[in-house]
């Protein structure tokens, strides 16, 4: 009976709602006094410029640079500009970016169009990568040497231009150019028999991608044909000397001390690729959609490698000592890669849809290198067939059910020792797919996905074999100003013992809220909390004992992010605002980590279009088991925002 009352109440509540709803968009012109029309500015936007101050970093500076890496000085923190030119050759443009003046991530983007002849997009970004953690994979840490042998101080620059012609026509040609460049320095190892020597590594690689194509957009047929090419060059090299260095092995071998006195390694890698793709979507009948794709690429590289090394080395095969090691290798590698897909959407009835798709993805890598007695080859074939049925028993509720079959195989050299044979792995997975989506109004939605997969064969020991995956996501706008959202993800894999016992479980629960009364002009509250757990348990063979050992990884993490903004009652004409919050990440398990980033920000308006910004941040990192990976730093910014 109680259910019946509940049911009735819900039905009544749902019936009443539409009657209460007012047409949000309908604003009759005659209703109310006439509002004075705002004068439209051809240029609008805002930019922020400021000076950043850092305190001394307490703890390890290299760790600070590996994680935060924000420096002092004048910065163009952010800008966002819109131009409504309404000219013949430029109707509208949007230019925005941030981080310029020396920050590790700087970016700018531009989009412009004239509405008839062209649409242009440009994207440029530069990213600094600094990574020199004292404890990470450092073979000499136990000797108290904190200089990591795998450290990098590099930068990547990425630039992309794309122009589409006649964007408003059914036939749209387009062209694009992308350049990606990496350069900088680092430390890597020169590996000789029985010893490794840290050496300077100069990095310099460039990739140019050109592509062009045409899009055909008709009411029942959409077609994209694209052709492209890649030019690639990698000129990295290493150097060492002239001082002799003993490397990681300090003990003599057969009475001789191994040393490196001089080294020049040069990689001259030059490559290219040609790629093509065709995509088609057609609607031959009202109840049928067909989509298909064909994508092919064939990258190849030509290799010229030279090495001259002087010092005292040993050749472990012949047990002879050598004073020099020189090499010049020529090689080539090619990797044809084909991906094709065919899909159907059949709608036998308005609320019933059947989705069917077949996909294949296959590549092989063929290569040979001179002075190496063997060529190498990798093969990989992946196929997938998926059927899904979607039903809408009532409006706004979608139920899904389906089946996915994945099969394929791979082939690679079993080992790098000698003329090792090839080994073959297979993949065979059967998956049941289920899901439901409920979107009661545009204010409330709840989606769920369930995937139950069983595998006969997988390629790697760590591949997921028998697993269940669940995802639930929901959003609810309780009022016009208060929005709640949350998600839950669960993955559980258990590989049967007859294959190899591999247990993996992860779970993520997260929730958040946004409260912005008065369209965000007054108080603003944004908060999120997430908890994630990972547990991985797998046996492996310890090479030194040939006994089995356990690789056990655990992580139990809590993440809190929040920002509260309040208006300050200073009695000024324009409103000052104070924001406080930040984020906190705390985890326990295999690598316990604490990472705190509190922040406080004040905005003091000087006029209608100008305000002063003051921001304070604190960064604190500690990793319990890794003594050197920790730092604390204060940071301040004073700047101007102009709009």
């Amino acid at each position, binding site marked *: 009976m109680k259910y019946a009352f509940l049911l009735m109440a819900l039905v009544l509540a749902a019936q009443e709602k539409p009657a209460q709803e007012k047409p949000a968009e309908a604003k009759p012109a005659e209703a109310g006094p006439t509002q004075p029309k705002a004068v439209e500015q051809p240029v609008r936007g805002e930019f922020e410029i400021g000076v950043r101050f850092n305190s001394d970093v307490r703890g390890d500076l290299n760790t600070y640079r590996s994680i935060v890496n924000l420096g002092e000085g004048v910065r163009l923190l952010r800008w966002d500009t819109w131009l409504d030119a309404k000219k013949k050759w430029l109707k509208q443009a949007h230019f925005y970016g941030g981080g310029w003046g020396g920050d590790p991530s700087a970016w700018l983007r531009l989009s412009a169009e004239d509405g008839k002849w062209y649409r242009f997009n440009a994207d440029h970004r530069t990213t600094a990568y600094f990574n020199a953690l004292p404890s990470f994979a450092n073979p000499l840490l136990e000797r108290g040497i904190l200089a990591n042998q795998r450290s990098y101080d590099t930068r990547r620059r990425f630039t992309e231009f794309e122009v589409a012609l006649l964007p408003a026509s059914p036939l749209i040609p387009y062209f694009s150019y992308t350049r990606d460049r990496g350069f900088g320095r680092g430390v890597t190892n020169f590996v000789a028999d029985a010893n490794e020597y840290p050496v300077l590594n100069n990095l310099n690689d460039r990739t140019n991608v050109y592509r062009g194509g045409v899009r055909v957009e008709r009411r029942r047929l*959409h077609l994209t044909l694209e052709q492209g090419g890649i030019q690639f060059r990698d000129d990295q090299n290493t150097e060492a000397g002239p001082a002799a260095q003993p490397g990681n092995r300090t003990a003599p071998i057969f009475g001789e001390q191994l040393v490196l006195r001089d080294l020049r390694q040069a990689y001259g890698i030059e490559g290219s690729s040609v790629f093509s793709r065709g995509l088609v979507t057609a609607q031959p009948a009202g109840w049928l959609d067909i989509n298909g794709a064909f994508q092919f690429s064939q990258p190849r590289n030509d290799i010229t490698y030279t090495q001259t090394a002087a010092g005292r080395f040993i050749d472990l095969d012949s047990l002879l000592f050598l004073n020099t090691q020189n090499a010049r290798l020529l090689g080539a590698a090619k990797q044809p890669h084909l991906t094709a897909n065919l899909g159907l959407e059949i709608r036998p009835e308005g609320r019933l849809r059947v989705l069917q798709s077949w996909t294949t993805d296959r590549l092989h890598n063929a*290569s040979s290198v001179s002075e190496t007695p063997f060529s190498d080859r990798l093969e990989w074939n992946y196929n997938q067939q998926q059927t899904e049925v979607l039903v809408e028993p009532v409006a706004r509720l979608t139920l899904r059910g389906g089946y996915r079959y994945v099969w394929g195989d791979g082939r690679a050299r079993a080992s790098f020792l000698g003329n090792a044979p090839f080994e073959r792995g297979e993949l065979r997975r059967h998956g049941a797919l289920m899901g439901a989506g409920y979107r009661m109004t545009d204010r409330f939605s709840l989606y769920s996905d369930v995937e139950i997969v069983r595998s006969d064969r997988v390629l790697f020991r760590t591949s997921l074999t028998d697993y269940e995956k669940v995802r639930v996501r929901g959003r609810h706008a309780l009022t016009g100003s208060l929005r709640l959202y949350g998600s839950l993800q669960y993955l559980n894999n258990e590989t049967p013992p007859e294959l190899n016992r591999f247990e993996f479980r992860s779970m993520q629960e997260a929730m958040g809220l946004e409260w912005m009364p008065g369209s965000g002009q007054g108080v603003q509250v944004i908060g999120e909390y997430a908890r994630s757990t990972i547990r991985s348990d797998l046996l492996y063979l310890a090479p030194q004992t040939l006994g089995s050992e356990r690789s056990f990884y655990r992580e139990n993490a809590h993440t809190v992010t929040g920002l509260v903004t309040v208006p300050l009652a200073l009695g000024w004409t324009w409103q000052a605002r104070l924001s406080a919050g930040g984020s906190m990440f705390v985890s326990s398990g295999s690598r316990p980590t604490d990472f705190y980033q509190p922040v406080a920000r004040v905005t003091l308006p000087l006029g209608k279009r100008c305000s002063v910004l003051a921001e304070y941040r604190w960064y604190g990192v500690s990793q319990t088991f890794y003594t050197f990976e920790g730092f604390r730093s204060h940071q301040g910014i004073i700047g101007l925002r102009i709009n």
Partner: protein
Amino acid sequence: MVGLSITTDTIRKLAVLGLIAVAPGLAQQPPPATPAAPARREYVGSVMCQGCHEELFNSLAKTPHGKLEESEKLGWKEKACESCHGPGSVHAESASPGDIRNPLKSPAREANATCMSCHKNQPTRVGAIRGGHARNQVSCSNCHSVHAAKPKEPLKECGTCHVAQLAEFQKPFRHRLQEGGVQCVDCHNPHGRLLSANPLRDVSANEPGCFRCHGDKRGPFAFEHAPMRTEGCGACHEPHGSANPRMLTRHEVRNQCLECHAGIGQSAALGGVPPAFHDLSSSRIRNCTTCHVKIHGSHVNRALLR
């Protein structure tokens, strides 16, 4: 018998709860068609819409959709509003919101069908039919604001559903999302992908999206590290963020490597041969990448040593 009665009772409760769940949807079903003949729906032109919705009309004109109003070829000249909202004659008479199609409030299937009739095959739209968003009633308007000249902020929109993924970017080793250095759509195609099991977008025809910025890892290498091609970068890295350096999925490099290179069980799997003669108790040998420096693939050495 007890078990049977409990089962039946449980099923009954589940059925009632199921009804409760769908009740609001049932209640919001349009009432049964009345015998009265429906008014004829005809296109009235955007000028009529502008009379009441001038603000929306003006802001739409600044968006890419604004060109519908002017272009003869696209078939909606002077009817841009009705290209999405359908014929507006009945609504113009009654001014009732129920008399006009509102994609924002329609079921996602209907709303998306309206958008897809024009946007099916643009470069990022391929696979929209099978995309997770499309399957889960996430409609185009959840992320795109059609009337607003300024698009919604991608980070904010993705984060309101993918809360857990956004939280991962608060970990110490991560991609620079908050700083604007990367955006979600740099790596993901929110409209779907051919290989639906993998959420990454494609670049240069069929290469994984990681190579868009990490061109030096593209290869092909003379000596490949097989998982790079078959499992993708996610086999070893947590691309959103990690507590482990280099965004690795394990806290120590040797665990990362030895879990595959282990030689126990499943003889058919690739990479199962264990590393021989390596004394992992020695700190010199313990970290595999000390020697195997070209772990992503090598141009000259099969053991990935140089």
